[in-house]
């Protein structure tokens, strides 16, 4: 996608098409000849896995929509009809529900990989921001999709999340009523959520195209953080990256199939097998697991901060936890891209990961001591990581010496021996 190439297809029909619509050229440049750094590890395969899951979610979603009825009177039963009567319906529905979870597993690994290898740093700021937008759209899509089965958690999750907007003074209540189409979550809400749940994945697909476009302009980062300097540093996308991505996808699918076929309700909540009842709240409302860290930050603010009451404070903190990601490229002051060469930051990075997991665990706990104030500690660290650690550490930390080039790093690693891969690899001269 990075400009026109001189590639001309060899086959007659493709030549004919290429002269009229340069699609063969685009595919060749983007997915065949496109150079990728030769030292990418398996953490870099999650972009491909995410593309696969986006397609899988859209496909299963489209066929589920053939049987689902977005009407509060029959939505719950229509999902059960899919589970019981529709041919393969149980599999398609479990694929879609668990597919959402695995989509988030993959996206979190993808995001943490980007954080670790500094993939957000110049000149990839736009690539990163597009990624954050995709993440936001994914969260909106997942939230609205979870409402559709119209179980107890669907209903009360929708009530709580749309309740966020009431935290804003003056405009809050009108906004909530606009979103709900009424004074509470009801048929109007369900119907519009279904419409938007069908629309948003295609918007995600659109932003994904921009995301890949931006990626192909700047090229991938790599574990050394040193930019590609010559063609020796790269391998062609096909077959090297395609087969490696393909292998990683199938391994990921093995894990997915394990959950899908053997414990499809492991990641769900039993209360969602109870039909929505607007008059009875479940004893303990929890969102889906992938929202838990944000939910913990929302609940961590139980006190007023000056003129901001605790409710608005929680909502602002939760939205702020995403907004801060947009500014990440400018918050990190380090001149070194990859955490592999930043010994001090490496420690902070893993504390950040542990903190995120702790926040997720806290989000699943009831809102009572000591969980609420532990959540507050976690929230403070989350923001501290972005607003204090990253800007300050970049200025004071002494990074390790960077390799001169990717090839140099690879050769140094293989020459160092010790690793069996280095022993079996072909002589360096072939590289």
């Amino acid at each position, binding site marked *: 996608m990075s400009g026109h190439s001189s590639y001309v297809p060899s086959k007659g029909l493709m030549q004919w098409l290429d002269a009229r619509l340069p699609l063969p050229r685009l595919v060749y440049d983007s997915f065949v000849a496109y150079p990728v750094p030769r030292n990418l590890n398996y953490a870099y395969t999650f972009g491909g896995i995410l593309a696969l899951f986006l397609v899988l979610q859209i*496909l*299963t979603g489209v*066929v589920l929509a*053939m*049987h689902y009825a977005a009407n509060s009177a029959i939505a719950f039963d229509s999902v059960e*009809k899919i589970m*019981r*009567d*529709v*041919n*393969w*319906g149980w*599999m*398609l529905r479990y694929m879609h529900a668990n597919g959402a979870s695995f989509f988030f597993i993959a996206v979190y690994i993808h995001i943490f990989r980007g954080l670790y290898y500094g993939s957000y740093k110049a000149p990839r700021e736009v690539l990163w921001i597009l990624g954050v937008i995709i993440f936001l759209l994914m969260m909106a899509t997942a939230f609205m999709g979870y409402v559709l089965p119209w179980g107890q958690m669907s209903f009360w999750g929708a009530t709580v999340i749309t309740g966020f907007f009431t935290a804003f003074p003056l405009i809050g209540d009108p906004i909530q009523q606009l979103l709900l189409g009424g004074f509470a979550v009801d048929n109007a809400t369900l119907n519009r959520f279904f419409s938007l749940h069908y629309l948003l994945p295609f918007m995600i697909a659109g932003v994904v195209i921009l995301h890949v476009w931006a990626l192909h302009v700047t090229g991938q980062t790599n574990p050394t953080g040193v930019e590609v300097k010559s063609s020796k540093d790269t391998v062609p996308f096909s077959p090297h990256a395609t087969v490696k991505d393909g292998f990683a996808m199938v391994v990921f699918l093995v894990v997915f199939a394990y959950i899908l076929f053997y414990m499809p309700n492991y990641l769900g909540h039993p209360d969602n097998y109870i039909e929505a009842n607007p008059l009875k709240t479940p004893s303990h409302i929890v969102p889906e697991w992938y929202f838990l860290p944000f939910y913990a930050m929302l609940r961590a603010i139980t006190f007023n901060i000056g003129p901001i009451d605790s409710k608005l404070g929680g909502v602002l903190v939760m939205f702020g936890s995403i907004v801060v990601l947009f500014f990440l490229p400018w918050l990190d002051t380090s001149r070194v891209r990859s955490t592999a060469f930043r010994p001090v930051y490496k420690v902070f990075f893993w504390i950040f990961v542990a903190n995120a997991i702790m926040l997720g665990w806290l989000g699943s706990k009831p809102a009572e001591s000591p969980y609420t104030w532990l959540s507050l500690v976690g929230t403070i660290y989350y923001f501290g990581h972005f607003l204090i650690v990253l800007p300050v550490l970049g200025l004071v930390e002494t990074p390790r010496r960077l390799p001169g080039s990717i090839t140099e790093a690879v050769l140094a690693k293989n020459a160092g021996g010790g690793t069996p891969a280095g022993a079996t690899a072909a002589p360096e001269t072939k590289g």
Partner: protein
Amino acid sequence: MSVHDTAEPNRRDFLYIATGAAGAVGAIAAVWPFIDQMNPDAATLALAEIEVDVSQVAEGQSITAKWRGKPIFIRHRTAQEVEEAKTVDLNDLKDPIARNANLPADAPATDVNRATGGGQPAAGDDMSAVREQWLVMVGVCTHLGCIPLGQSGDYDGWFCPCHGSHYDTAGRIRQGPAPENMAIPPYAFTTDTNIRIG
């Protein structure tokens, strides 16, 4: 896969072919559920039966029942209509097959075969004689699925206004684009005045 490969080219080719084949088989197997889900589901396929009380249907009257989402014409035919249907020469029929789900698939389209239901006859019951005035058929034109109008057309039977198909008093196609006689569903009289369809 190049001809220049001298080192174990067969094994290499085999690996690529096996992987490609496995991928293709997996892809086809994965696509099937996505297609099969469009077939009728278990609830739709489940045996659907309706029972219709015809005690109030006088000679020359018709009622329409709904079975599997389609209209079922139940007509209490007049003696004249039965006679008219019986006198037709089978060679004059466009479709000489009875199209009766209660009879073998190749049964000829005689009036008796058109008006015969299935099931066990009631004690001492001569099916054809007693029931021949009753015509029970799926009221869907065999051309493109419109619902024909009763007691109209050139043959005193049914006429489909969509594309001009004429059916006779036994529901057989006589003129127009429809290819087949209107279908007779599986049905049986459970009593003298009650029909079970399905």
